[in-house]
């Protein structure tokens, strides 16, 4: 953040130099003073940002350290005590998770659930959002309000009625059932976010596209989608994380059957009924975090980009 704000100023000054070469020596100390003032002014902000980030990272760091500690040590002393010699780190927890029964199947099931569970709501959500943002039909605003209203329906309240519906449709314990559930749970947010984003696109774009004879489909795929990559990318990350980390929906609609159960269910079976053996959860947390991290970093570049960079040039 601070980088992008300081850069333009520093670039401006060298440009001004050739005009007044004589003043160069005098300006130099002033420049340093200005920079110093600038740095000092920015310092509290930077310190707060760094402190807050560290504070937020602290539990994760503790989890990481714990995941490499033997079970006995975890229950006897805090994770920070492991940071001073004598060091005693082991891979037991990771080995136990990776060799656990059904973990590979769980990983594959998680992928089978998560990929359609991410693509479907975003695809359908973006269609709907386009309709809400740029098409006129009766009752548009009311329907949109209903969709937004669905955001506040707690997921737990939907479990029983949907399970009843699934039983009659024979969707219980099947992947399509979970895809539909995740799609439905993800749609209100997807529609809401994308509709607001689509609406912020300049009206001129659509007018000129229509003047050029573009159909709605062409406008959507050629103009709206390419311009909305940052919004779509952030939504993808949200939805992916939500579906990947989900335990409740899978337990209810899939029933925890090992043939279809995702990794979260397999991991939760690593802890016994008294909650002991929980140290393996620390390792499991990091293993299941790997794929979402890959997704995050591969989509992350789109966030930084200017949302409308280059779209209305020429």
């Amino acid at each position: 953040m601070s980088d992008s704000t300081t850069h333009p100023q520093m670039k401006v000054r060298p440009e001004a130099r050739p005009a007044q070469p004589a003043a160069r020596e005098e300006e130099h100390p002033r420049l340093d003073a200005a920079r110093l003032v600038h740095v000092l002014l920015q310092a509290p902000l930077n310190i707060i940002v760094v402190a807050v980030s560290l504070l937020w990272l602290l539990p994760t760091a503790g989890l990481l350290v714990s995941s490499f500690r033997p079970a006995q040590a975890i229950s006897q002393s805090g994770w920070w005590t492991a940071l001073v010699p004598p060091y005693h780190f082991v891979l037991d927890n990771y080995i136990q998770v990776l060799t656990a029964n059904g973990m590979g199947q769980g990983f594959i099931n998680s992928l089978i659930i998560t990929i359609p569970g991410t693509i479907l709501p975003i695809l359908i959500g973006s269609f709907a959002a386009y309709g809400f943002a740029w098409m006129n039909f009766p009752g548009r605003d009311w329907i949109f309000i209903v969709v937004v209203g669905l955001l506040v329906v707690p997921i737990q309240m939907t479990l029983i009625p949907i399970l009843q519906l699934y039983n009659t449709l024979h969707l219980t314990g099947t992947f399509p059932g979970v895809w539909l559930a995740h799609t439905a749970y993800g749609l209100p947010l997807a529609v809401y976010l994308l509709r607001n984003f689509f609406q912020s696109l300049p009206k001129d774009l659509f007018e000129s596209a229509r003047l050029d004879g573009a159909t709605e489909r062409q406008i959507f795929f050629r103009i709206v989608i390419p311009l909305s990559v940052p919004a779509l990318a952030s939504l993808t990350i949200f939805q992916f994380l939500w579906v990947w980390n989900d335990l409740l929906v899978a337990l209810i609609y899939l029933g925890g059957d090992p043939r279809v159960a995702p990794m979260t269910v397999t991991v939760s079976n690593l802890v016994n009924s008294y909650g002991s053996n929980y140290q393996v959860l620390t390792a499991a947390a990091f293993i299941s975090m790997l794929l979402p991290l890959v997704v995050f970093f591969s989509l992350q570049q789109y966030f930084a980009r200017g949302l409308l960079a280059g779209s209305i040039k020429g």
Partner: protein
Amino acid sequence: MFIQKRTGLIIAGLLLVALVAVACAPAAAPTLAPTAAATTAATTAATTAPTTAATTAATTAATTAATTAPTTSATSASAGAPTTAATTANLSGQHVSVLGVWGSSELTAFQKVYGVWEKQTGGVVDWQGTRDLTAVLTTRVQGGNPPDIAILPNPALMQQLASQGHLIALDSFMNMNQVKTDYAPAWINLGSYQNKLYAIFYRAANKETVWYNPQAFTAGGYTVPKTWTEWMALANKMVADGKTPFSIAAENGAASGWPLTDWMSEIVLNNCGPTVYDQWVTHTIPWTDACIKQSFQLFGTILGTKGYVLGGGQGVDATNFVNGTYPMYTNPPTAYMDYLGSFAQGFITAQYPKLQAVTGYNFFPFPTINSQYAGSVTIGADVLVMMHDTPAVRSFMTYLAGAPAQETWAKLGGFIAVNRSVPLSAYPDPISKAVAQDLYTAKVSRFGAGDVMPAAMQQAWWKQMLLFAQNPSQVDATLNSLENSAKSIYK
């Protein structure tokens, strides 16, 4: 062309909204729960028809139990092998889903147990594990998709499900003579609803055990107390020596407080006897009853006496119950005694694998409070119930109830069988053998009070005990508050 595309999109959008609305709309009316439940019954009637038919058949058959017995006599130990052999052909490829809370080493052991049945019959067991069993099971029952077999944590939930008609009566197909040989009458009573057997108790916990470190006792010159008076004298001696006698730990997430209600159950049973205990559990006497009050005062003495409990009231509420089993075995020990059910053995051996049973760690039975009720034991057990009636489920249920299945797990450790036909020689170490023996020979045994009370009462009691640990002198306030909760919960 343009307009067609447009209307197409509109229709798609409308469909979408309709879909989402349909998906979520029923939930918008949670107050209509009974109606919703009724609809479920109606909508799922078609699918469950065979089951219900079977159930009614079963119920009628139950009245003529003698005739049903030979057909599925199968039940256990001796008769187990022939039945399973007979059903081998029918069951291959048939699935039995089992919902339970076990994980980790428990699950590995249970997999070995059902592996034997799978090999014998060709059936397949689908284990569905969750530690939030009550919520998941309730949702799935309401949604019309219960598992074939559920392993419940307490009989209160079983009674509730039985009263709602969600369970299959076991006496319809099990050989009741065999069941009566294998299970003490108290267990059969606990598992029955309106004189029909609905539940088999499977994995028991003996909750009379006070864990201690024999070496530390020898080093300090302490002897195992037999009576409450001796116990308090011992505690005073330890305090005089500058040591902390008790480790009491009650933290367990949302279920925090249950180790304290276990304490109270054991004290009430030993202090007031089984009659008062039963009246207290069913709320035919109030919480403010004189003997219940006296029992709370006894526990209040332990919690409130300065220097008795490691960490004081704060320590009790903030320490995880598993970690509470450790302080006896550190060097030097930070506490000397920990009252917790027989499952504590698993925690101790996991944390200190080198400790020898009996010499390194051991238990003594809960000291006698009233000599009239000496040897009273509170217990806990997982509860097996059956929710779908198919030949495979019947076969698996019968197998689990029998002695061989329970013996298999007992040999692997961490398991005290409820089936009394399981020989004591099956237990792999002297401590679990002693625990099992005490359980079978106990003069008086009762299920832990909290697990038999309605769930709402149990939870209110947990919370009150956490407060009581902080203010052990407030016996009257605690009991009045519990009595108020009880008045609204029991009807």
